[in-house]
């Protein structure tokens, strides 16, 4: 997990949620950031545009924290790279 990737994901979450970027750290859960299910799909939408990837619904549903989100994106970027 590169710092750059974490920073990009955090920036997207912060922008979508209209919260300060520094509040979105790798240790935060979505609950702590007050991200509900509808916020969650807005974030997924923004991340898909940011990284030019498709995030499948089933995988997205399991994500509950910033760390899990970054890990998921990392996996999808690796898969995209491999294509």
């Amino acid at each position, binding site marked *: 997990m590169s710092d750059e990737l974490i920073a990009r994901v955090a920036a997207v979450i912060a922008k979508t949620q209209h919260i300060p970027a520094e509040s979105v750290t790798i240790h935060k859960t979505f609950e702590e950031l007050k991200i*509900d*299910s*509808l916020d969650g*799909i807005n974030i997924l*939408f923004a991340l898909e545009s940011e990284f030019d990837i498709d995030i499948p*619904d089933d995988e*997205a549903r399991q994500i509950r924290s910033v760390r899990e989100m970054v890990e998921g994106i990392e996996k999808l970027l690796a898969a995209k790279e491999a294509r």
Partner: protein
Amino acid sequence: MNSNRRVAITGIGVVSALGPTRDAFWRGLIEGRSAIRPMELVPKGAVRFPNAAEVSGFQSVDYFDDKDAEVLDRFAQFAVVAAREAIAGSGAEFRNGMGERTAVVTGSCVGGQTTEDNEFRGLYALGHTRFPPMTIPKAMANAGASRISLDYGITGPVFTISTACSSGNHALGLAFWMVRSGMVEAAIAGGSEAPFSLGLLKAWEAMRVVSPDTCRPFSRDRRGLILGEGAGMLVLEPLDRAQARGARIWGELAGFGMSSDAHHITQPTAEGPARAMRAALADAAAAPEAVGYINAHGTGTPSNDATEAEAIRSVFGAHAEKLMVSSTKSMHGHALAAAGAMEAAGTVLALRDGIIPPTANFTEPDPACDLDVVPNTARTAQVEWALSNSFAFGGLNAVLVFRRID
């Protein structure tokens, strides 16, 4: 005004993915046959979910002359076709002043979506600079209601309700109250929907609530809803009047209750639906213990089904153990504004025939939906009272109560 009138259902019409008639619909439901298939109305692969419950093989020419077909969007055609079946079967007539004392109340969630999508594509993508002049009256949400009133000379209250997935139940509930109160002597009510435009499906895709395979309400492995289309229409009349004219009586619409969650624009609560169910039972003066069957909203999304089960338990307490609760959306899909109307038809037919339609595509129980969901196979059961639930995005809940009439 007479607020004590009982209200009979004297006509039922259905257009659904199970077929273009009431009989095809009912046969499909009691066979537990799911009409969820690969989508044909939009290009393959254009959205992430491949399946839907489309009314395959529906051809305008089978029901309308060329000129009418051109000015009626698919959702309005469904409304008219279902209304024709319901009215023809009821034997209701609108001459001699009856037209003035009859209402048409329809539900529509997205109106003439396919018409708009098609014309907007022409404008934005194909360089068209002009629209066909009938685009506005074709796409308006009341197009179906207005056409029914025109075809039958119904000149009383005619209007359309839009409350997303509760539209059909809100339409039926209000029409029922209008007949019960004596405001009108008859009503044609229900809902219709034709949501398969690429533009709208892309929006559904972004909501991440549509299942990538099929609709498995109340199953532990459920993955979301499956969109459907079609229409359901009922003819409502005062019971005494229907009996006096010797009409065929399918059942009684006995109560209606509604509520709003005021909680979240998409996340459901158990409290809101529970209040609507209690209000409907109170309106029908029915004891919870008298209810034998609930046609659930049961969309197949992880959150709806668990919340609905919780709401049912909170209303019925220990009696919840004795209830049969099925979601027929597993067979006809979630037809949005038409869903409540189709499910009303299914519920009335279940009471009349003594057959409870199942929840199809059921795989394994979910402890969060621990009710008798009538998995996969219809069940023979004599039930006097039944509920039909509809809950909408926006937190709007509408519940109907039906009673068997022998």
